[in-house]
């Protein structure tokens, strides 16, 4: 369960990072708290859109989806089911691939680094790793997590 909690928390953080970048992109926030100015270079470049859609909006939708899956995976009825972990891992894996492409653009094409994008890259990578760890736990038949129940007072084994 601890992996799924971590996934929910990380996807919520990612949601806020991408919302912040998207609000900047659509002109609702004047300047980005970035320090180096690299954020604006990246956000205003032609690569800040992918297939005609703002990359920040893609991130926003992606993290919202991950957050919804992570929350659903925390429901007691789904705690020991494998498909939420598989879905979370698959979505995060797509995110990691997309982030790798964006990071390549930052480093070798735009020649500027956006700290918020680096933050998002760390978040999506962590989400992917958490998904893999959860899958491994389920496939190895490990216990369900750390939740303590008031009914029994028992503590389950750590995930």
């Amino acid at each position, binding site marked *: 369960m601890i992996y799924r909690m971590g996934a929910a*928390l990380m996807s919520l953080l990612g949601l806020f990072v991408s919302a912040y970048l998207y609000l900047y992109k659509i*002109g609702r926030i004047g300047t980005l708290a970035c320090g180096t100015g690299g954020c604006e270079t990246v956000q205003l470049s032609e690569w800040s859109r992918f297939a005609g859609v703002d990359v920040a909006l893609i991130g926003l939708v992606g993290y919202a989806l991950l957050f919804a899956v992570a929350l659903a995976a925390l429901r007691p009825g789904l705690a020991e089911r494998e498909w939420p972990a598989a879905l979370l891992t698959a979505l995060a894996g797509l995110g990691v691939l997309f982030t790798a492409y964006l990071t390549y653009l930052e480093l070798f094409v735009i020649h500027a680094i956006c700290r918020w994008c680096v933050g998002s890259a760390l978040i999506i990578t962590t989400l992917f790793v958490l998904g893999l760890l959860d899958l491994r736990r389920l496939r190895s038949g490990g216990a369900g997590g750390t939740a303590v*129940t008031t*009914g029994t007072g028992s503590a389950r084994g750590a995930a």
Partner: protein
Amino acid sequence: MAAQPVGLKRFYAILGAVAVAGVGLLGYQLSKPSTVSIPANVTVQPSDTAGFHGYVMGSDSAAVEIIEYADYQCPFCQTFATLQMPAIEERLIKTGRLRWRYRDFPLQQHPYSRLAAHSAACADEQGKFWPQHEQIYEGQPEWSASRDAAGIFRRYAREVGLDLDRYDACMTSHKYAGRIQASLDEGTRLGVSSTPTLVVGGRLYQGRFDSDAIIRLVDSLAPRAAAAK
């Protein structure tokens, strides 16, 4: 009755706190007012206008000069700048028949007019007045409704290729506030009361204009202006 997972409840409380904090931070960013404002009714110093008589586009030898008094937040000025000016520029200014002089006339009812004028003045420092001027007019629907017009102008500044450090220093210094006020005062002295107003040979033309009317006007004035030289 189902047991209550205490760890999960605690986790949801933490998640809720993070969500509230995140929404609060985003809300704060959205509600932040413009970080830069340009003062109105400043005392104009002689140095404010020294050698400056508006932003000029076109040849010094053009037979006719039109002075435009305009306000960046005025919708008619925006329509004129985006729809009519390209034809005027192409058919009259680039052909050397007309010289265009743009002067600021920020109306009191428009809260971002001076800010926009100052942004364009700061772009002028770096030789990019006209690109910034066009961006500001084209983006009027966007910044006019925004709480952070200054941030949007800064974005335009970046897009037109300005050095942002110099731009920021210029905007926060308010160094052109006096020049903008002087332009407004001069327009008022000439009798300008609305925007856009065109001044041609000392005569005021107010209202809506289209490029064809301007072309006819220049055609009618050009022989007289040439003869007067």
